[in-house]
């Protein structure tokens, strides 16, 4: 028992460090890139141009209709067959960004649609273009509406990055796996990994609450 406790304590910081140096940057970078992509896809979906709207719809459909693990493997193990060899880290970032792009696009689209039509018209009547109304009037309000669902997307992403261990990215779960393989204490190490993921997510949920309160004034009351 004492030995197990010692192993738990000894492996705690290495696993946490795997999270801080692997999981969090992987999730953060993918999320930011994914959001930019998602805004673009959302605007495609909202476009009056049928071809553009269809492209957006197709993208969302493919991303949501295929497993993330398969997307990851296609990029890391599949693309080399086409002569495109990408390292584990960039592969993971590409895969997760594309995935967030699909899911967050639907959230952003719904948030934009939730802003009353009168807000667009008010923007137009003070002389703004479509693009300027979107940027200055609609998106700030849509951002507030989309904080809770996007936070959920981010928290899911943090956990999903554990899949990157399967393409040899050193992150939280891979560190735990390595220690488990070495010590043969699978139950202990995997529970420990679960605990640390949970702690990370607790912190993120608290951050979500703070962000929501700060953005509260953006809601149309």
């Amino acid at each position, binding site marked *: 028992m004492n030995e197990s406790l010692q192993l738990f304590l000894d492996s705690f910081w290495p696993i946490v460090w795997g999270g801080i140096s692997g999981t969090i940057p992987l999730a953060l970078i993918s999320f930011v890139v994914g959001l930019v992509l998602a805004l673009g896809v959302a605007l495609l979906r909202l476009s009056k141009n049928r071809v553009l709207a269809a492209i957006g719809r197709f993208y969302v459909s493919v991303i949501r209709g295929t497993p993330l693990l398969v997307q990851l493997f296609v990029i890391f193990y599949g693309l080399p067959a086409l002569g495109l060899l990408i390292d584990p880290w960039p592969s993971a970032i590409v895969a997760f960004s594309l995935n967030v792009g699909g899911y967050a696009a639907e959230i952003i689209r719904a948030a934009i649609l939730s802003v*009353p039509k*009168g*807000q667009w*018209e*008010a923007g*137009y*009547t*003070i*002389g*703004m*273009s479509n693009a*300027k109304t979107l940027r*200055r*009037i609609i998106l*700030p*309000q849509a951002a*507030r509406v989309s904080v809770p669902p996007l936070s959920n997307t981010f928290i899911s992403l943090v956990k999903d990055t554990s899949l990157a261990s399967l393409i040899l990215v050193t992150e939280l779960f891979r560190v735990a796996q390595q220690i488990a393989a070495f010590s043969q204490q699978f139950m202990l190490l995997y529970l420990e990994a679960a605990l640390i993921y949970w702690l990370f997510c607790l912190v993120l949920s608290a951050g979500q609450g703070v962000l929501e309160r700060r953005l509260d*004034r*953006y*809601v*149309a*009351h």
Partner: protein
Amino acid sequence: MSPTDGPGAAGGGDALAPAARPDDSVLLTVSNIRKSFGANEVLRGVDLEVRRGEVVALIGPSGSGKTTVLRSLNGLETPDAGTLEFDGGPSLDFAAGLPKGARFALRDRSAMVFQQHNLFPHLTVLENVIEGPVQVQRTPKAKAVAQAEALLARVGLAEKRDAYPFELSGGQQQRVGIVRALALEPDLLLFDEPTSALDPELVGEVLTVIKELADEGWTMVIVTHELAFARQVADEVVFLDGGVIVERGAPGQLFTAPREARTRQFLDRILRPFD
């Protein structure tokens, strides 16, 4: 951007006053405009002429097309047919669609006050008012702020400059909506049922402001259900029903001696609902 004959920059007491009008020449003409939404034909050939300094009130039952007429004047709706001329500019043929440039030009010269004020909820009162001048008209911020403060003071809302719209009463929100429109120094003010969404006790404070603007010579087109108000401020009252203009005239004539039976019916129903 800013029209030469618009109101001068903020100047204390006369912040709301337009500069002296050179004449009462025609500012805006629409001819024979038609509009259908699906199978529903809401405008069936409407003509309207607005002179500088004139107040035109559009009245009529719900669904008569009066709001659609108003929204056609700044391109929020594009009629299917008909023409529009603004301030001696080229005649725009709606059948050919409204080119982007013409749409922007119309919005550059006009401003609108909505039924549901449509203030920007994420901006303070002051930010709402200076958004157009600073972001669209490229007015230096300090100048726009000074002008906005003067306008807010004129409608009694100086101390609300840093409040958010949700912190205001309905009447205050609508007065900010009016100030937001005035800050653009438009040639033409459009009001879309500005008091219809307000509690009855808040209607007066908004109408008072609009009345002041009328007295100061602003050119306005007002869609309203407030007939007593229309009678008081309008130079011309236009009664629409079923997508056509049934009757138009000076308020004294139209309200007391309507020529058309349909007008009489409408007025009776509104003015003496319990007879």
